[in-house]
Every structure is written in C-alpha cells, then in structure tokens.
C-alpha cells in the first residue's frame, strides 16, 4: 500500500469521525469542531486525488490544490460566523444548549421543534 493510499484511508476515517461527532455531541462548539474535522477529511481526499494526478513536473495536480486553498479560507470564515453565533447565544441566554427543553426558559418556543 502506498503512502498516498494510507493518507486517503486516514481522510475517509476523519470524515466518518467528524460526522459521528456532529450528530452525537450536544454542545454547539463541539459540533463546530466536528464539522471542521469532517471538512478537513474532505480536503485531504482532494489532496490524495491530486497527488495521484501528479504530472508535467508537478507533484500534485494544481487544480484541486487551488480548490482546497479556497475551501480552507471559506471553512475558516464559516467557522468564525458559527462561533460568533454561539457566543451571542451564550450572552443572551446564559447557556449554549440547542435543546428546546432548556431550563432557562428565556424565549423558549412553546410549539416544540
């Protein structure tokens, strides 16, 4: 098995781990971290596919590389926005729970979900 394949399997596992964390972790900040882990796995898959497309003196296909660079910056700005939302939620309600059965009761939605 080549090194590229090892990294490819690692990337696939990172996507799975991120998905699991995104679903099961109740805290928003943990969900954000898990989502970033998922995204990082997807970026790595791009890198693995680009590495296999090494040609013309390039060690890695430049097109997926450029897409990943754009993706990393977009992921960072989305993360910053998500964190700003969580911090604002914490400021206004004093808690970061996403559950409707929150004990604080401030502005709780009586209609359920």
């Amino acid at each position, binding site marked *: 098995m080549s090194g590229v394949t090892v990294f490819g399997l690692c990337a696939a596992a990172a996507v799975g*781990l991120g998905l699991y964390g995104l679903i099961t972790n*109740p*805290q928003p900040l943990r969900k954000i971290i898990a989502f970033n882990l998922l995204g990082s796995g997807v970026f790595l898959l791009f890198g693995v596919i680009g590495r296999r497309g090494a040609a013309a003196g390039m060690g890695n296909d430049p097109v997926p590389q450029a897409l990943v660079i754009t993706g990393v910056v977009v992921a960072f700005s989305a993360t910053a926005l998500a964190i700003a939302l969580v911090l604002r939620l914490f400021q206004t309600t004093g808690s970061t729970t996403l559950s409707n059965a929150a004990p604080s009761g401030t502005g709780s939605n009586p209609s359920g979900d």
Partner: protein
Amino acid sequence: MSIATIFEIVLAAVVLGLGIWTIVVRETYSATVGFVAYGLLVALIWVRLDAIDVALTEAAIGGGLGGVLLLGAAAQLRDSEPAVTDAAGNAVRVCAAILSALTAATLAGAVLVLPDPAPTLAPAAVSNAWATSLANPVTNVLMAFRAMDTMLEKVVLLLAIIGVWSLAPDSAWGGHPGPRHQADPHGVLVFLARLLPPIGIVVGIYVLWTGANHPGGAFQGGAILAAMWLLAIMAGLADTPPVSSRRLRLILVAGPGLFLVVGIAGLLFGSAFLSYPPAQAKPLILAIEVAMILTIAATLGLLLAGAPERRTGQ
C-alpha cells in the same frame, strides 16, 4: 507509487488518534487543543502530498488562526459546560455510528479503487502558464484559470464579516470588536508583540511576492499579516478599529472590488469576464493580489476579534 514509509503510517495514525480524541474527550477545551494539534499535523500530511501551497494555508489558517478562534471561544464558554444532560441517547449514538462507519467505508473503498492512470489537469495548467507569465501553477489556477472561485471566495469573506458584525448588541453598533486587551508592559507578550511584527510583516509580504513563482500567495501572506496584527491587539499595543470606520470598510471591499473591476474590464475590452490580456496579465494579477492581501489580513483579523462590543472611548 512507492510503499508507504514508517513515517507516513505513523503520521496518519497520530492524526487519526488526535481526530478521535477531539470527538470523544469530555472537556471542550481539551477537544479544542486536540484539534489545533490535528490541524498542524495535517499540514505535514499536505507536505508529504507535495502540496506545499495547501500546507502553508492549512498551517496558517486551519491550524494557527482557526486554533486561536476555537481556543478563544472554548475559554469564554468554559463555565457553560452542559448543566442539562441533553446528550444523545444510545439509539441515536448507534445509528450515528453506523451511518458514519458506512460513510467512511464508502470513501475508503472509493480511495482504494481510484482509476489508474489518474485523471489530471496538471499538464493543461503547466502548458498554459505562458498566458500569465507566473511560474507557480497553483497561483495561476487561483488567480487566472479559476479566478471566479477566488473572487467569489472574497465575497464570502465579506459576507462572513457582515454576519459577525450584525450580531452586535444595538448599544455597541459602530464600536470596536472584541475586548480591549491589557497586558503587563514588561511581560513576554508585549515584548514579543514589539519584536515579531516587523519580521512577520516582511515575511508576509515576501510570501505574497514569491507566490508568483514558488509556493505562497495572498492567502498565506494575508494570514501571516493578520497574525501579526492580532499579536499587537492581544498585547494591548493596538486597538481594533471601530466597525463604522470608512477606511476599514474600504480595505474590506478592496480585494473583491478590484477583482470585480478587472473582471468587468475583461468583459468590456477582452474576450470574457475575468480574462486578462496576456501582456498585462502579471501586473493585473499582482495588483489584485496586493488588494487581496489587505482584504484578507483585515478580514481574518476582524473575524477573530468577533462582534463589536464597545463604543468608541470605552
């Protein structure tokens, strides 16, 4: 393809171990620290994949600035560790585990049966490099062949900063983002904040300039400049500008604005939107990159600073 070296297997195992740690560890702060370490090691994987440009971006933005962002949020939310146990039930956990394992297995299977020889656009990118007279194919793709993506990404940065600012309480609108930092004027932080920025600014500009022919570019350089700015802010040597500042807003729209102007000029005088005449391609790309690095540095710094919190003079 060669056989995997011990180094590559160990690197992949450690990265995976850190990934598991960030998901299963109980304390959010520990998970954040694990994720920062994960981001830095992933940059090493990018080096092994021969994608130095991505490795620089991942280390600077994914590991560095992203790490500061997550650690800051985790520190602020430390005392909000869940009072209620709204953890997922066992049934949900099992279903999530099955779904995640299936997803990972499908992707792993796809990695194992990728076509051989692999499709690649590298020869096309290299053989068309004459059109821009830049020698770094990644910069060529970013700034010329797929310039549309890069321009729209600048718009995404702008939308993100508008989104963050719009979370300000009414009383703080137009004020300074983030708290006013104070640090011991004789401490290590202030010393480093005086020592490092001159070097960091030179390195940031060098990374931008060398991006034409070697790994580097406006993203990586902009992240370094943003880090230097943040260092000065955190040491209390500088303050974040008020979000109502006209000069700041001009810098924030400079990158996408100039990109759009050049793009429309290409539509009017050239063959298509964002088409550069080959003779002027390099100066045009350089001008856009200079505007972009200012926008990127300012936006990344302000995204980390967060929503406006204080009125001027507070």
